[in-house]
């Protein structure tokens, strides 16, 4: 048993300690919003927050997050939508949508660190892959999310 906090809730997980967090989420906790794209930390589809930091969950083992706080796309917004999700809707970002949870999680983490990122900072921080090519909308949506976050403060 490994104890972790998932989306604010403490869970005891009966999976192998060396099971990657991605598969714990998808197979043991039925949280399938976090996606598998490559398994080698190359695409970002599996991005979640661990203690507020963006991490590629395919390459983080369950034992490494013992006692830590994990947030997935399902828990990003809480009661209402997160500013990132609002911006994503406003700019109609998703096409197939498969990569988007990873992008939104990475963006939310970026904005915590850099509330007003430049294009160059966005490009450097978001190295995720979108095969549908929604990058231009993503760039705009990141700026929009930054503005919405500021307005909410």
């Amino acid at each position, binding site marked *: 048993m490994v104890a972790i906090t998932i989306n604010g809730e403490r869970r005891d997980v009966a999976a192998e300690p060396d099971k990657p967090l991605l598969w714990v989420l998808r197979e043991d906790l039925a949280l399938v919003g976090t996606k598998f794209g490559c398994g080698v930390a190359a695409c970002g589809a599996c991005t979640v927050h661990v203690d507020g930091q963006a991490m590629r969950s395919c390459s983080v083992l369950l034992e490494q997050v013992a006692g830590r706080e994990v947030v997935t796309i399902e828990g990003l917004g809480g009661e209402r939508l997160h500013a990132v999700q609002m911006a994503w809707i406003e700019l*109609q970002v998703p096409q197939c949508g498969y990569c988007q949870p990873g992008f939104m999680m990475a963006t939310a983490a970026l904005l915590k660190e850099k509330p007003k990122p430049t294009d160059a900072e966005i490009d450097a921080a978001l190295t995720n892959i979108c095969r549908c*090519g929604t990058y231009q909308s993503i760039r705009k949506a990141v700026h929009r999310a930054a503005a919405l976050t500021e307005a909410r403060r």
Partner: protein
Amino acid sequence: MKFMRRKLIIGGTLSTGALVVGWWFAHERDRLGGRDTFKARDGEVALNGWVKVSRSGTIIVAAPRAEMGQGIHTALAALVAEEMDAKWEDVRVEDAADLGIYRNVEMLLEDARAQDPGLMRDIALWAGSRVAGILGVSATGGSTATRDAWEPMRLAGASARELLLRAAARKAGVKQADLMIVDSRVSTRDGKQVATFGELVDAVGKLQPLDGVPVKKPADFKLIGKELPRLDVAAKVTGTATFGVDVRLPDMLYAAIANSPVFGGKPKGFTIPTGGLPKGVVKVVELPTAIAVVGDSWWKAQRYLNEQLKIQWDDGPNAKLDSATLMRDYEAQSRAVGDAAKTRSFQTAPVAQRPMERGIEATYRAPYLAHATMEPMNCTALFVDGRLRLWMPNQSPSLMRYVAAKTAEIDQAQVTIHTTYLGGGFGRRAEPDLVRQAVAIAKAVPGKPVQVMWSREEDMRHDFYRPMAVARMQARASKEAAWEWRCRLVGQSATGQFIDRVLRLGEQGDPDGNSVERPPYGFPSYRLEAVVPKGPVPVGFWRSVGHSHTAFFDECFLDEVALAMNKDPLALRRELLKDQPRHLAVLDAAAKAAGWGTPLASGIGRGIALRQSFGSIVAQVAEVAIEGGAIRVKRVVCAVDCGRVVNPAIVRAQMESGIVYGLSAALYGEITIKNGAVEQGNFPDYDVVRLADMPVIETVIVGSPDSPMGGVGEPGTPPIAPAVGNAIFALTGKRLRSLPFKLA
């Protein structure tokens, strides 16, 4: 000559999809459907085969096409909602059953089989081309979907509206002509509220569905042509959209797969290490060309496959296959003269030698490409009591059902397909290979659902690749005029192989699907040849199919012709398009928006390219820089004429998407084969465009509402590689004739 022409027509059919759809219409009788076609749940009433209304006022539209990001659910629903005068916020879609009115592939396969054997080849070709048109075109991004739905779905909406009006008139005891509908509310013309759609559910249920109701005039459109918000976005930003890999069923098992690394190989056997299967691994299943490990966790199954299970492979006849050797062979075939047995050609009368003429010649190359959809290939199957249920992201439920039934040796009526959201399609998900595996595995664990998923490595090494191709381009011109264009292309036929592999109708060695076609330019003389080698490398429909490489060959070579004639690339294109007003308008729109001819910042080069595909014309201007030894595309201006536009936001999104997909291929994409196996396995060695590579894209929609509707899912892809190649030449003076572009 007659024979040749027909081939070309079929080729054209496949590459544009337009005729395929035309044909389909000719055979359609009634696509309105009845009440029972679209199953109503509690509190809902079906108005015909395409639309239901619920008591709460929701308008539910049948969506027979796969949503893989191209926005097709939104576009199709808008057609019905428009005619109903429905409130857009109340509209949603529901997966349509696999029935005739929504289009039916196996009906057509059976047509082909039922024919006199003497006609078999011809019919098979037709059937094959129609299937390919449907799968390869409609499937790859909605390039035909909206065109196909334009009439039947608007008719369905008009018929539903009429029925609702009739019910409202009875209810209010007024003449129907005195009623109107705005935003799902029926009122009298003088503004008295009569009923909402939801309030009419019971009354309308008693009326007979209506056929032959006239549709609106375009001038009266309120939703069509507007940037309506997409219907799938909310689910996709909250992580609640269900893709194939997200299907979760009680007691579900997972299967990981090792396909024979060498194309055409098969397992000889496997050895389970002493101690037997570990906890959580249930079974090892031998398939015709693969080994499957079934477990209670995909991760455990995949780990067992990677680290424990010993598989012995029989590599078969292709153990020495090498794409570099194959490329040299293609190059030799591209230089061969005369018609080999597999050459198909089209030629107009040659033009005599002219004074001061020059011959221009060059050889171009394009590699195999993987689709690399973001969601790896998968299929979930449950086999119980002789019945089969499949959940999968797929581009043709009819074909999947047909293949599933054949594999399971049961009747098609015993098979149900649930189409989930697709995490990308691009043509890959028209292939039924996963169905065959999933059905075989499900039969080995009857009564338990099993989710088969490939690792990214399997996905990349067992794709149906964009065919590798070599083209020898030739032209004759003087300083004043260009008069001959020649192309001799060598490459496998995606369509031909698909017909053989999927429909088992024998490989069709025709240029179909390679899109060796006559460019729109007014050269007085043409000679087009296609050499179509057969080969063991699986090839398939890759977004925009043959145009993805032939546009590169044609449009870069045209710039070489312009250079030889000492003409500006835009000016030569304009001259050669003087009898093609639509093409010319698109070209001019792109050039104008890009500021063609205006000075650029130093270190930037500009290139232009144009391609007609899938019924739409697209021109792009790329601005390119070299930074740190790497090609950087800074800006792309894209002009598109796709006829009438249903949703401009979706058109723009599809252009951007197509450009990024093509740019990934132009800058990085290359699948190579050594010792019979694909060398690349994951994104680190098959890189794609990311945010840091992303140019600014500006899309201009050139309106031509009276032209036939064209597709938008694919036409954005073909022009980007040549536009970038031409910009690299403008900047560096280096003509790069192979994809992906490499500076050194």
